């Protein structure tokens, strides 16, 4: 029996993209559930004590990181390897900054403002930021792998699926925050 498969028949890239989108769609629902939980339990109320400057700062950092991630993909798609490396590194730095801001700063400060994970608004606040931070962490790890693979010259304008996948995932994490930021910090 032949073991050779005629790969030409299948568009591997289209298959990969569909699979990734399905994964993202499914994953997005976890965040949707937490978002619903937040409104179901606490309506549109929120504590006044939240650190607004920090919230806005984190949002800006994450949006900028999405721009650099986009530029990384655009760079490799047009054959610019050093642009890829530069922008990947920037994205990783911004992502790490975001993590430090949420886990290292916001999580330390919130309990002093009366927002604790065990009860009241803190249940929603910590579960939502926590799950999101976990995704940011995995995104940063993914980008790191891609970064080191890129340094070894693994990608070119005709094959950069690894970059594309990591970047898409990163944008997805950003989109989640686009909804979480107003839901956690802004609604009334």
């Amino acid at each position, binding site marked *: *029996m*032949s*073991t*050779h*498969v*005629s790969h030409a*028949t*299948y*568009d591997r890239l*289209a*298959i990969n993209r*569909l*699979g990734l989108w*399905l*994964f993202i*769609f*499914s*994953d997005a*629902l*976890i965040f949707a*559930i*937490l978002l619903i*939980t937040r409104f*179901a*339990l*606490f309506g549109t109320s929120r504590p006044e004590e939240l650190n607004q400057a920090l919230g806005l700062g984190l949002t800006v950092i994450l949006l900028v990181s999405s721009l650099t991630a986009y530029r990384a993909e655009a760079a490799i798609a047009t054959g610019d390897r050093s642009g890829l490396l530069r922008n990947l590194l920037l994205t990783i730095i911004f992502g790490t900054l975001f993590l430090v801001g949420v886990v290292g700063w916001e999580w330390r400060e919130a309990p002093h403002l009366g927002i604790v*994970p*065990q*009860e*009241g*608004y803190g*249940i929603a606040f*910590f*579960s939502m930021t926590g799950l999101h931070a976990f995704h940011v962490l995995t995104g940063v790890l993914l980008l790191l*792998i891609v970064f*080191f*693979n890129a340094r*070894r010259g*693994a990608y070119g304008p005709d094959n950069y699926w*690894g970059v594309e996948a990591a970047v898409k995932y990163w944008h997805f994490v950003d989109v989640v925050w686009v909804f979480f930021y107003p839901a956690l910090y802004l609604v009334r």
Partner: protein
Amino acid sequence: MRLLWSLGLIRGLVWGIVGTAIGIGFTMLVRMALGKPAWETAPVTFVAAVFGTLAFLAGVGAFADWWRWASGEEAGDPPHHHEGPEWVRYFNFDTDHKIIGVQYTITSLVLMFAAGIMALIMRLELAQSGLQFVTPEQFNSAMGLHGIVMIGSILLGVAGMANYLLPLMLGAPDMAFPRLNALSFWVAPPAAILLFLSLAFGGFDTGWTGYPPLGAVGATGKQFFYLGVFFLGFSSILGAINFITTTLKMRAPGMSMFRMPIFVWGVFAAAWIQLTGTQFIGTSFLMVVLERLLGMGFFDPEKGGDPVLFQHIFWFYSHPAVYIFVLPGLGVISELLPVFVRKPLFGYKWVALSSMGIATVGFLVWAHHMFTVGLPNEANTFFMFTTMLVAVPTGVKFFSWVATMWGGKIEFRTPMLFLLGAFVTFLLGGLTGPFLAVVPVDQYLHDTYFVVGHFHNTMFGGFVFPFLAAIYYWFPKVTGRMYSERLGKVHFWLMLVGFVAQTGSMFQTGLFGMRRRIADYDPSLGFDTIHLIGSIGGYLVFFSMLIFAYNMIRSLVAGEKAPANPWNSRSLEWLLPSPVKGVSWPTPPVVVGHPYDYGVPNATFVRLAPAGGSDRSSQTTTPAHETKEANR
């Protein structure tokens, strides 16, 4: 010894144990560093279980290729060559969808037997009023395990059929993501182990629904239950990604969506529920675990939480979940029926779309499990109507089957008998459904054995009977041998009689107020005889499954050689030799017609591409005697 170590399963178990130990040590160190007492059963065992599961997967070799990719090597295509004896592949991380399909199916059957034993324990206790054999706590654990292990078994059974058949039926070389496919299978064994480990930590007395507040307190065993379900769900989601992508992107040339085998439609519709719905049970259970471990009061009113919220999230998956089980099962019925009555499937397009219809409407009915919660009347009424609506697409399927059989020449071989069994039980389950959908009736029948009877009939009609029909039907394809027709028929009749007796007793006691999830009942209710009949029926079902197991094992070793196409099926998979060796379809066939034109003169479904080489190039799927039959 070397042979033993070459088995991924053994490596996984050893690594899993080591990983668990490391997890225990790690958690205790972290706890000490945080200034807490080193040992506390709940958090330590939880982290250890997660570590153990990941280590199991690493030991099996599930992460090998991803690790290679992460460390900068080229992972390449999954290998098609294998050394050593063939059977070893079934115990290893293997990317061939046919191996994975068999792995899933066998695991599913093993779990089905395990969960069946739990049912036997319950039936034994219920056979007589008073407590004879188990404590109420043990009864509750047996009940919860029966439920959740059966659900796991069914999910794996669906994945088994889908994995084995999808590429064969679609003319694809393999699934879209073979590595992911193998990973999603190998998540299941540790998940099942976790479910059973719950027994070692005090069991879980919540039943498979795991409602808080009861679920949020008490024995550590509940955490193993929640975690096991979480991993099973993970496996299910990854599987769904594969099913959807394969269906959309890897069909043979000429096979439009409406030329797909109808079974694929069932799997495709179910996969969308798997992909989306499963997150809801997973997240709801995750929230309960967070409440248990970190005190986050999602469902604790004293802390600002709401226990009813859990039920909403939970049932948003757990109602559609039954369609994950039933849609592929009903797909099997629509797939096999035309073969055994030698007539085209009636209303193919409607049957295909009804699967999507059921999958959609299924997401709008969840609160019919909550009619006694005290939701607003408007909500209850809404969910009553949407629930009734499910009967419409389901009815489309039923009438299609009746019309397909109408005037057909039915061949009563074992798979066909199981289809008839499915009709009987699915009809019983279907007809009792609308009663339960009506709010006032449900408020009387809620949590009685009437519900249990209804549910088991839908499950047997929608999944168990079709699943067994599928196993008999494709057994020659998978093994190249025939099963024993005589034993198959004995299996069927024992099972049908036993099952109807068992659920009949459930309907009757339920109508008279027998509560479910209770180990004992008042002898003055007069249920003793009818419960005894139910128990005898239950044991009969189990006994018939033993005959089935014997039949399968004996036929695997010493069954007659199967003919190339024992059912004269037109479907793609029967064009390949049995068992299929190597890559399923190295060159895709070309589809030129409709799959179910049985008895239609000169109807051709498929032409094999000449590049496929060798002797199969000129075959088509019209069996030789077919044209005669049509002129009858």
